[in-house]
């Protein structure tokens, strides 16, 4: 009777889970080792001069240095904080804006060209304004993150609302959902799975932009770290920062994936 068990695809049924898990860890590990080997060989045969291509060993050494100096942790905290604030502000504004635009055809028509225009402006184009308006410190970086995240998120939420099956609105009509209640009890939950997916995508953009954003007007942060390493021609240190950026990006994405496990959004991923 319990359909959840029957409907489990074959490769997820318990008997298959153990080899599945070994594959999930083993295969990426093989690829990773191959990647390291290629890198190591590239250094060994001096494809690029050694100052332009640090070897895995150099990077490992500089990791040790950075951790001992304590700078790395400080930079990580600074970057995470800026991305979090910028991302949070843009989500808090873009989600309601997207819901509103999705429900009102006239306002959608009015605002869509402008939103699209700003979406295609690289956030890097805003750098001079960011510095002139917000000077130095966290603010210009947060502003750039906001500019990179707000427009794609608002547009994604808007188009998600536009694709809600009309049957939900007919049912809502039958049961007297109107106005604000319609928005919070029908429209919002109907697009929540898509909002979560968009948040993941947009977070990816924000995390990419932080590196560039911190190259100006900041005295710390992962982006600043790379900038400084470049200035000192310490590419081993730059790679070390790149590794951290990649790993943190993956880690936070794993956290956002947890949102897709909420019981009231599972339907959006299982159909």
């Amino acid at each position, binding site marked *: 009777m319990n359909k*959840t068990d029957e409907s489990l695809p074959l490769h997820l049924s318990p008997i298959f889970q153990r080899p599945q898990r070994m594959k999930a860890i083993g295969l990426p590990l093989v690829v990773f080792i191959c990647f390291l080997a290629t890198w190591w060989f590239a250094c060994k045969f001096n494809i690029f001069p050694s100052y332009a291509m640090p070897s895995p060993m150099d990077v490992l050494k500089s990791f040790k240095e950075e951790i001992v100096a304590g700078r790395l942790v400080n930079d990580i905290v600074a970057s995470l904080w800026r991305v979090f604030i910028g991302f949070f502000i843009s989500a808090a504004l873009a989600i309601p804006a997207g819901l509103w635009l999705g429900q009102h055809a006239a306002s959608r028509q009015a605002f869509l060209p402008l939103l699209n225009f700003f979406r295609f402006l690289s956030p890097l184009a805003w750098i001079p304004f960011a510095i002139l308006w917000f000077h130095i410190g966290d603010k210009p970086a947060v502003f750039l993150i906001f500019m990179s995240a707000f427009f794609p998120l608002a547009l994604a939420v808007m188009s998600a609302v536009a694709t809600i099956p009309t049957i939900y609105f*007919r049912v809502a009509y*039958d049961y007297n959902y109107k106005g604000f209640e319609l928005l919070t009890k029908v429209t919002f*939950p109907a697009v929540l799975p898509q909002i979560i997916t968009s948040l993941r995508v947009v977070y990816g953009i924000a995390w990419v932009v932080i590196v560039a954003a911190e190259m100006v007007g900041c005295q710390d942060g992962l982006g600043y770290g790379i900038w400084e390493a470049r200035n000192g021609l310490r590419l081993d240190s730059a790679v070390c920062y790149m590794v951290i950026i990649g790993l943190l990006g993956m880690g936070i994405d794993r956290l956002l994936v947890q949102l897709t496990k909420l019981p009231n959004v599972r*339907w959006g991923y*299982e159909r």
Partner: protein
Amino acid sequence: MKDNQLTSGLSLQNVSHAYGEVKVLQNLNLTVKPGEFVVLVGPSGCGKTTLLNLLSGYLQPQSGSVHREGIIRTVYQQDGLFPWLTVTENISMGLRLADKSRHKNELRELIELIHLQGFENHYPHQLSGGMRQRVELARVIAGDSDILLMDEPFSALDYQTRLRMRLELVRLLQKRPRTVVFVTHDIEEAVQLADRVLVLADRPSYISRELQITSPRPRNTTDDTAVEATKAILHEFGLEVTDNDKNKL
């Protein structure tokens, strides 16, 4: 629980409706008596769904008038449940306007009525098609609804489940009488459920035949009255095999 069914009323007068150039309904008249089970049968695309949308008030007729009294709810072919709500939460949508103190008992009663104990906290996508339609039925009869509109509610189910759901519906309506307007293309379904069958002719739709089936429910499709009605409907659709046809072969 609704005791008084006399307040419900539903009628169409000279209703016409068109989508652009395509006339869907023309001069349709229909009065549904309180407590009556009316089935509209017709080929697909003949405007049945438009008719239900007019009855529910979701659409306004282009000409003519619709009179409705009482709380009207619709059961759709499929996926009318909100997928982000559990079985219990979906059913309690039907109790939104009812007295809060009765909620708990009423919910338990409804879940027992549709035999879904143990599935209270499941989400629609975790249920089979038949179970989902049973939740739909519980949701529309919950609280103080008066009139149920059903838009081919069982047509997305497999054949046997469909047969079972008909009996289920009859049973639910015996416990909780409602006025029903049921739309289907399934002749068997019509004759097994209806007090009155209205045969719709193709676009623009009009009622080409009206049949009363007086024998009490539950009834079989093989009961005499049902067989009679089936013959009449088949004849109306031009699908009846006459003795003449048989002799030809």
